């Protein structure tokens, strides 16, 4: 029996990209306006009682002032309750989960979940790459973001015969989807050869195996189930969620062919929603690198362990495939403005379940969509949220 105590009644985002011309605050205001605009029966912004804002980079890379008090004034609602959520790459999805709990607790009836991230205000060397020296001074020396994921690719290729073509097929498919998504950072098709011949970033991963650094913002509006019909006749319900952690350093992992945080988060979310992986119609999963999506679709139970590469190459995860993955273009093509990423994934799931995904629309016979992030040091945090358009009987 799905949880369904909270409904998503609005969602929107701004076009992702290198938004040098927009401030953090302008991006937030744009996403909020899009979410307000999307509500079927109209929505008065002052109805927002509390906001949960996901921003990951803030304390690290020059946005030190961004706390819970930044968003209310940026979106024209000074004075509302607002809390910043930081939980690595799943910051946006965890803000969503926490927002849903705030509504379900009965404390708030109307909550805004908003993710905003400025990735490009600093140069690439001072942005994500600066992680080459974060954490334990010896164990993390030289550890840029791809170093946290590429060892999984090396081992997956070794154990299961996964090839660079299989990895590349993930990027090709997500760029195809991104080309259909007006909000995506990249809107061009690429080929397997493009991926394989792109420069090596962190072997075995090459440039087009990696997501870009993207600015962006996304927002959703959550209300309690009891009042959902005031806002829409077509609500989408929060069916379940799960969050899980794993050891932070790679040498503490017992396996490099799955991400155990993802497996545990999925198990908890499926249990809460009362469903299993075969009930999911489509999913937005964390494809920061091509290998990550291959691991995700295995760890979330969509394909057998070790078969993620073959399934991707054979089109099982395409828009017309057995289980469409990352219809929005994913992190690889839509972009990865960290705090906004998970929230934007929720917007895509919301659109799919309402039949509003336009050229990317897939069939949703079961009425379930899944959203997933994994990240942090050593892929040590994962969040899975499941949405449904089926109202469970009380």
């Amino acid at each position, binding site marked *: 029996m799905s949880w369904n105590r909270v409904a998503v009644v609005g969602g929107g985002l701004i076009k992702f990209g290198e938004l040098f011309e927009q401030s953090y605050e302008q991006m937030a205001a744009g996403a909020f306006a899009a979410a307000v605009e999307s509500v079927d029966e109209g929505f008065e912004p002052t109805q927002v009682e509390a906001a949960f804002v996901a921003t990951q980079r803030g304390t690290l890379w020059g946005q030190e002032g961004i706390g819970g008090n930044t968003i209310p004034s940026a979106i024209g609602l000074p004075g509302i309750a607002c809390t910043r959520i930081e939980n690595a790459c799943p910051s946006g999805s965890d803000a969503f989960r926490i927002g849903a709990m705030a509504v379900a607790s009965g404390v708030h009836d109307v909550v805004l979940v908003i993710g905003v991230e400025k990735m490009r205000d600093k140069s690439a060397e001072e942005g994500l790459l600066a992680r080459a020296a974060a954490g334990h001074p010896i164990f993390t020396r030289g550890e840029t973001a791809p170093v946290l994921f590429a*060892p999984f690719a090396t081992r997956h290729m070794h154990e299961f015969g996964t090839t660079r073509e299989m990895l590349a097929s993930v990027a090709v498919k997500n760029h195809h989807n991104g080309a259909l998504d007006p909000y995506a950072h990249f809107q061009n098709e690429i080929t397997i050869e493009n991926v394989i011949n792109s420069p090596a970033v962190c072997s075995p991963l090459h440039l087009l195996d990696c997501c870009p650094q993207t600015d962006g913002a996304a927002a959703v509006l959550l209300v309690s189930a009891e009042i959902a019909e005031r806002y829409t006749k077509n609500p989408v319900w929060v069916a379940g969620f799960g969050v899980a952690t794993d050891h932070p350093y790679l040498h503490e992992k017992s396996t490099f062919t799955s991400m155990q945080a993802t497996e545990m988060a999925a198990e908890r979310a499926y249990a809460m929603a009362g469903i299993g992986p075969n009930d999911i119609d489509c999913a937005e999963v964390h494809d920061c690198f091509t290998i990550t999506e291959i691991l995700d679709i295995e760890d979330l139970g969509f394909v057998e362990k070790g078969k993620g590469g073959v399934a991707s190459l054979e089109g099982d995860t395409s828009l017309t495939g057995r289980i469409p993955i990352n219809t929005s273009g994913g992190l690889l093509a839509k972009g990865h403005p960290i705090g906004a990423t998970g929230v934007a994934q929720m917007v895509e799931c919301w659109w799919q379940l309402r039949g509003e995904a336009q050229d990317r629309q897939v069939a949703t016979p079961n009425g379930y969509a899944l959203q997933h992030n994994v990240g942090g040091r050593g892929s040590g945090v994962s969040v899975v949220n499941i949405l449904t358009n089926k109202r469970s009987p009380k």
Partner: protein
Amino acid sequence: MISSINILAVGASGPDWRLDRAEINAGWGSSGGKGQVAVCAPDEDALTLGVQAALRALDASGLQIDIVDGLWWGTSRPPFAEGPSHAIMARAIGLSARSAGALCSGSTHSGMEALFGAADAIGSGTARVALVVVSDALIPGLGTNYETHSGAGAAAVVLVSHGGNATLGARITRTNPYLDRYRGDGETSTRDFYDPRLFREEIFLPSMQEIGEHLSVLDINNWSIPDPDGRLGSTAARQLGVKNLVSDFANTELGDTGAAAALLGGIGSLDVAGSLAIIGTGGGRTSAVEIKAKGPVPGASEVRGDISGGTSVRYTAVARARGQLVGSGETVPMGVPPQSAQFVRGGDEMLTLLGARCVDCGTINTPPSIHPHCISCGGTKFVLEQLSRRGRVHTFVINQTMPAPFVAPLPIAVVDLEDGARIMLQGVGDGSDMEIGMDVELILRRYAHERGVPVYGYKVKAL
């Protein structure tokens, strides 16, 4: 009664890189130049070379490291002008926190001073087992006359009061307050001779002559004679009538290894019975000592192999590694400064390579300071133990894209050690030889150099 001073075992090491002399000459507009000199890779220095030689000597000795009473280290380039150079080396080798010894520095003569200091400790009975390490990684001034012969290398000797196949005999020191090569306070590279002929005719050859005459009463077969410029060594040998200039091998393979040259040039000949004289010079002092071997000394037969080989690199790479070619951009600092609390808590466990073995389930947690609970079972009782230094690659990457000061390609490997511990560390070299299942060893290297502080840790190297 004064004890006899015996050599139980020896060890040697050379750096990863080799530089063609012709490359250096071409850089300064002249042609020609045969052979190569040994040069430290960016993560090597006199300390890492010395640690490697010491571990080889200790391994050959068969002794448990904790019975070594002290470390006597001679180098003209300790990593700190002032600072914990000796303490870092002692702990990296695994010597007890109670060990004694000394750091001898100030000139290339310091190698002989370390040897004599250790010998005196054995002779006086204050030490029963003494470890002598001599190492240098000279940084010649760019364009100096002897740049084409400045090398790097290390030797180590385990001295004992009882046992061992070789014995230290007569020794001699002569002092003259002249100035040869030198490095002023705060200077980073060594200055050239004022006048090479003045040095040769009035300083070097007369010193060798005087020392040689004193040793001539002994029946010496083999000689290790310093060779700062590629010619002076053989000239002195001719003048002394020396037939077996055994230091030729190290001098040809590595170049002038400064404070390490005397021992490094000689210990390879201790693989058979015989008599050896080693001569060290620098800073206005010249010393020699006789070593008599009644049979092969453990480790001696490995010396040649352990200092041979190396990867040929370009002059620009060497200048960058030596800090003589510096990029103009900002570099990304370490996450925490090397003087911080994290290094006070965790510095020793990283140098001594400690793991915490869970008493309940046997899992080794690395490093101990960040694991109050076992990663496998959550247990809280641990036994600290030194990690195995050998293992096998489980998975790896080669990072090609990093901000300064990193230089790509940088291999990073997850390694399963022989004792069951799993560890993730940088690899040595460009990673082109790395593969899953490859057998590797962990060796000490310099990870960073920040605020004048060298930061040491272990790296993975193919066996």
